[in-house]
């Protein structure tokens, strides 16, 4: 494998570079993939739309410039569903998508195989229009760029040649602005001209000269009209600056080589002295042109003005339509209402929504229902692999990371049909077609290249379908796969958070905690109760989780704290055993800070409050801070930038509610403890699994992020278990 690397990298670089000049990149030595940049976008789009229309399903994958804008925005176990959505929203709003893989799959009934058309789009949010609005920045996570570089991502192809795009919102905004400009654009410029006073002697002389020139021209024009014939010959004004042309069937002067100040003076002269002349400013492809047009009458002038205005509007609209760019692909996917297949694709869908459609709504439920309008059926292969027993057995507990799942489920496809697998009935055959060239044998593609990742996702899905007894031989092309009853219960279900198995149903907006296959996983996270959590930050950085736990235990009792969890080095979540302890702790902290007498220094909590910047609040505050668009690296800095001035935010403890809660907790106390034990147990198991997985070195990007988080989590749990 490793020895192949340089060769593959080189061929990849070659293919992506050549894609800018030649459209075909079918290279026998590498995986056939159609690279699309701005030079071949138009043709690729038209061929893609045919493939999408004919497709049974379409696999997608995205590569971004980063995942989390600050360490404390990472995915945590302690993420409530709404907080998790806010984190995904933040990520999708801040980072850019640099590569978009689209791979339509079509069942070929003659060859009993699927035909895949992998496309790899380089996209870049270049500002094509002069007024694109404020969304002209994006964030890069250093480690993510490094990661992309490790997989030989071609940044030059992306930035130099990437296809640009406008979201629907940006397009609407741009059209509105264009109309606004042309509504009063023409009259506006006249107004400006009137404001200007000609005081300068030089200006007066220039104006006078222009006036003479124009009246001469007008006079000549009228004479020629009378004579009728020798129009061409008499235009002795061959000077480039002052060229006679025809504009909209009317004689006109094209003004060249004047400064903007001079043009303004000319405009003023025309306005002041010539009723039968109209000054026009026409912006063309890359440059703008000024004309003085001869008009017959006032009504003719109005007609001309309207004509010009309409033309300019149309021109502007065309420009905006061209700037829509890559979004045409998204519109295509949306309008065809085909089944979209992704792998752990909640973040991908959020990116698609925020980059190409509208700004992300503020809650996950709203998001789900709006996504559903545009993409009625989405299927997540990661959910599929984890929620079906047959598939789980096949996966044999190996990782559901994209490339590992691909090699487990579809060994026959990994290296094309070169491998000597017998044509077992359960093995789905896939062929790849790029630019009308079909191939059934290839070398492995490059992981984390969006086009290849989309292809792998599609293959996993096709194979999974066959294990679910969906027989494509009986499947008629007119039938939409999305409505297949065997897939029905998996459709539109996406992991909001893979770590705690939160699944959202896009068609209903409901969310559930998904089991990870075996039932004992189910209980893992039920012991996190967000009402029991206090968020503490701003304490001195040398204090460790263990010490915080000791501090609080000394005051509120040895069993008061269930766990302490580091958000980052400046903040922790403290999970109390009872909800009542939350308000108790906050009230105590507030009192200690208020009194500030010598005795309070000896208080066990004094260590935590040292430095005088320790702040505490309930979980809700974490949510509020997550919703802020600011992203400071440290949580304590973030809270400050967010504008938090108070030290303690008290929680009103409703006595009754707390009491019932407490008794309930007492009742469940025993079982809870054992629960949490088993939870940690399984967590560790999971870590082992994940670390094993990472030795594959074949994790998809999403996966790596997952495993990274989990390993971190376990580390955190460990520290809190001391």
């Amino acid at each position: 494998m490793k020895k192949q690397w340089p060769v593959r990298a080189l061929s990849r670089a070659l293919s992506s570079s050549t894609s800018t000049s030649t459209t075909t990149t079918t290279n026998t030595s590498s995986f056939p993939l159609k690279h699309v940049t701005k030079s071949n976008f138009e043709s690729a789009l038209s061929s893609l739309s045919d493939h999408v229309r004919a497709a049974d399903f379409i696999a997608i994958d995205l590569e971004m410039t980063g995942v989390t804008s600050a360490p404390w925005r990472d995915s945590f176990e302690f993420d409530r569903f709404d907080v998790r959505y806010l984190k995904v929203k933040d990520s999708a709003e801040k980072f850019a998508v640099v590569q978009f893989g689209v791979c339509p799959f079509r069942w070929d009934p003659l060859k009993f195989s699927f035909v895949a058309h992998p496309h790899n789009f380089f996209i870049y949010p270049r500002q094509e229009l002069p007024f694109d609005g404020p969304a002209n920045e994006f964030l890069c996570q250093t480690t993510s760029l490094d990661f992309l570089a490790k997989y030989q991502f071609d940044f030059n192809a992306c930035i130099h040649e990437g296809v640009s795009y406008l979201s629907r919102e940006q397009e609407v905004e741009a059209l509105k602005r264009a109309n606004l400009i042309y509504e009063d654009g023409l009259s506006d410029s006249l107004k400006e001209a009137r404001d200007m006073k000609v005081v300068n002697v030089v200006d007066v002389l220039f104006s006078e000269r222009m006036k003479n020139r124009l009246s001469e021209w007008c006079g000549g024009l009228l004479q020629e009209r009378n004579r009728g014939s020798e129009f061409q010959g008499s235009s002795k004004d061959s000077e480039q600056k002052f060229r006679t042309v025809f504009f909209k069937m009317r004689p006109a002067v094209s003004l060249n080589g004047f400064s903007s100040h001079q043009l303004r003076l000319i405009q003023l002269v025309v306005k002041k002295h010539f009723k039968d002349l109209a000054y026009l400013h026409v912006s063309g492809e890359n440059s703008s042109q000024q004309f003085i047009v001869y008009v017959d009458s006032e009504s003719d002038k109005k007609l001309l003005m309207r004509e010009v205005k309409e033309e300019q509007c149309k021109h502007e609209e065309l420009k905006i339509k061209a700037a829509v760019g890559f979004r045409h692909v998204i519109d295509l996917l949306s309008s065809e209402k085909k089944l979209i297949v992704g792998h752990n694709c909640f973040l991908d869908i959020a990116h698609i929504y925020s980059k190409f459609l509208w700004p992300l709504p503020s809650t996950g439920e709203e998001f789900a229902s709006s996504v559903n309008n545009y993409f009625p059926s989405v299927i997540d292969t990661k959910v599929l692999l984890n929620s079906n027993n047959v598939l789980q057995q096949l996966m044999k507990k190996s990782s559901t990371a994209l490339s590992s799942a691909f090699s487990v489920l579809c060994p026959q496809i990994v290296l094309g049909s070169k491998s000597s697998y017998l044509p077992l009935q359960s093995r789905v055959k896939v062929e790849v077609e790029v630019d009308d060239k079909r191939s059934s044998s290839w070398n492995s593609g490059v992981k984390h290249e969006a086009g290849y990742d989309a292809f792998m996702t599609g293959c996993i899905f096709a194979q999974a379908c066959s294990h679910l007894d969906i027989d494509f031989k009986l499947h008629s092309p007119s039938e939409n796969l999305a409505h297949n009853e065997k897939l029905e219960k998996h459709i539109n279900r996406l992991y909001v958070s893979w770590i705690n198995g939160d699944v959202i149903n896009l068609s209903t907006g409901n969310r559930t905690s998904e089991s990870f296959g075996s039932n004992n996983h189910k209980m893992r996270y039920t012991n996190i109760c967000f009402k029991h959590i206090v968020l503490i930050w701003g304490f001195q950085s040398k204090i460790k989780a263990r010490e915080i736990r000791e501090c609080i235990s000394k005051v509120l009792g040895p069993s008061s704290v269930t766990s302490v969890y580091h958000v980052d080095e400046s903040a922790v979540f403290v999970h109390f055993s009872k909800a009542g302890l939350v308000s108790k702790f906050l009230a105590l902290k507030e009192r200690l800070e208020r009194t500030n007498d010598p005795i309070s220094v000896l208080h066990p909590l004094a260590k935590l409050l040292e430095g005088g910047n320790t702040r505490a609040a309930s979980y809700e505050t974490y949510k509020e801070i997550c919703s802020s668009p600011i992203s400071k690296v440290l949580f304590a800095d973030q809270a400050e930038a967010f504008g938090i001035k108070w030290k303690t935010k008290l929680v009103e403890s409703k006595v009754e509610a707390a009491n019932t809660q407490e008794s309930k907790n007492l009742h469940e106390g025993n079982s809870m403890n054992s629960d949490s034990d088993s939870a940690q147990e399984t967590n560790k198991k999971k870590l082992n699994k994940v670390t094993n997985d990472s030795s594959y070195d074949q994790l998809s990007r999403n996966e790596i992020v997952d495993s990274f988080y989990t390993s971190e989590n376990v580390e955190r749990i460990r520290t809190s278990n001391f």
Partner: protein
Amino acid sequence: MVPLLQRRLFCNKSFHQNHCQWPIKQVTKSNFDDSLSEIKQRISTSDFVAVFLQNTGSSSSPWQRVSAFDTPDTAYSKAKSAAERFQTLQFAVCPFTFQASKLTAYPYNFHLFPRDELKLGMPSYSFTCQTSSLTSMAREGFDFNACIYDGISYLSRAQEYAAKVRIGNPMPVDHKTKSSSPTTTVADTVFVERIRTRVRHWKNACTDISTTKSDDAFVRSLRKIVLGSEKYGSRPSITIDVCSERQVQLVLEMLEQSDNLVPLLVPAKSGGTQSVRAVLTSSQEDKNLLKMELQNLEVDQTKRVRGFREVIDLISASQKPVVSYNSLNDFTFIHSKFIAPLPPTVDEFTNSLHLAFPVVLDVNHLVKNIGPVRKTTNISAAMSYLKNRFFAPVDMEIPHEDVVNEGNNHGHNVVKICHLFGKLCSVLKITASAIQSGDHHLASSALQGYENVFKLCPNIPQESTNEEDIRIWTNNTRKVSCQDVVFLWGFKKGTTAGMLKSLLQGSHEVFTEEFDIRLVDRSCAIVVFWQPGSSQTFLDIMNGTDFSGKLREMVSEGVRASGYEAYKRVCSSGLWESELADSLDKALASSECISEREFESKPSEIYWCSELMINLDDL
């Protein structure tokens, strides 16, 4: 890939032929070590060092650019926010000498990428890119792959310290930090005696082992456990746990009494010292050898950690004057990336920067002292302006021998800066020796006030600048007190300054006096009252309840106004919305809970320059 890349760059070359005439040494990870020693020598023999930074962005929206109506405070806030968010991808350094109209320059262009080499989340977790900046870089043929794949990483001075602590390698004792112990308590004496006994036992055991080799392995390992003996390289060592810096002190003093022990400090993860490690050497020579080894180790590690910052340290150590085009912008970047996080106020910034770079010369500022402001908006414009106005031939020479010009010749701006600076020196009669001598009173009087102008923002002379200096360029600049400036927003989008002015003129009698109005961005305008006190009258009306006539109409349409302090608050509390109107609204909303004392207004003035206002056509 290389030939293809070249092909594309060759196409670009035809458009930028003029840039390619100077050979500039391109430095990436692979040739960094060689270039470092080379540039070290070049810097030491040079008169000046010019720098130019290529960043991933400059300002998020038009009003966030430093402009004429900024005081030093607000300008610094703006530059600070940009420096904290954007990333430097190329850092061009050019040591040069200038003698008798002959300029000898050695331009280097360093490709940077903030790769996390030590896996510590440093130097930067993430950075912002401005699409338009990257696009224009791409147009100039910038090679992003070279930058991200082979860029040199770095750590700032502050980060280096943090990294050393976190890596946790034992550090040799820095003799300067040692201070004599004050008084010795009983507890101290007990502690020292205990440690002394332990060390003595251990030392005896070590020397014993070397003499009597009869013990079997088991006994030896047992003894090792009992004595807590470890190996440091090939030498035996012992770790002494400490609980406080006081104890560190005591242990070090105690160890010093022994000839053949070398103490090392093991830093704790959260700062401070976790333990002291004593290494036993066999003789004085061996001790010296060990010390040398430690020193080399440290140098190696430092090199790895600092990366490109070595170059910054070289420039700083040389104390040579640094020439830059936009010094406020460049040095906020340099400070935040290579020295330490930017301090909150401009005074702290200048002080901190002064320690690292005593003399900074801003070419842009120098040019402005000669010519009208609007003609010199960028380096090329300034150059052509000088060419047309003055006869000051500068003979450029770039004696790079080993530079293979592969077509990717970036960093030409730094050479332009050298060239421009050379011309300016001729015009202003500045000599290198005058600046170098350090005796600034003897230096050409023209130089005074140009030096260290990073204190000021490019267009804003500091309050202390003497009157004569201002007069030179007041032909279209007028001094305005911040108190006479009012920000106005909430009007209809697309309103021009002229329309606003005519609207205001009839709205209230305040506007019968002379006033000026300019748009800051699409959403907000700035009004200057030439009659002192008028602004206060206007603000009082706006904050009051009774409006009349047209003003009432405007206010009910949503027009709001505020004095300069609201703008200051926007900048100081970092309310960087994309439109100034939104920021001002936020500032007003938050001001209700902040008392006025925070803005005990320094008497500050800005320069009203009609030419410098943001041109809406540029947006």
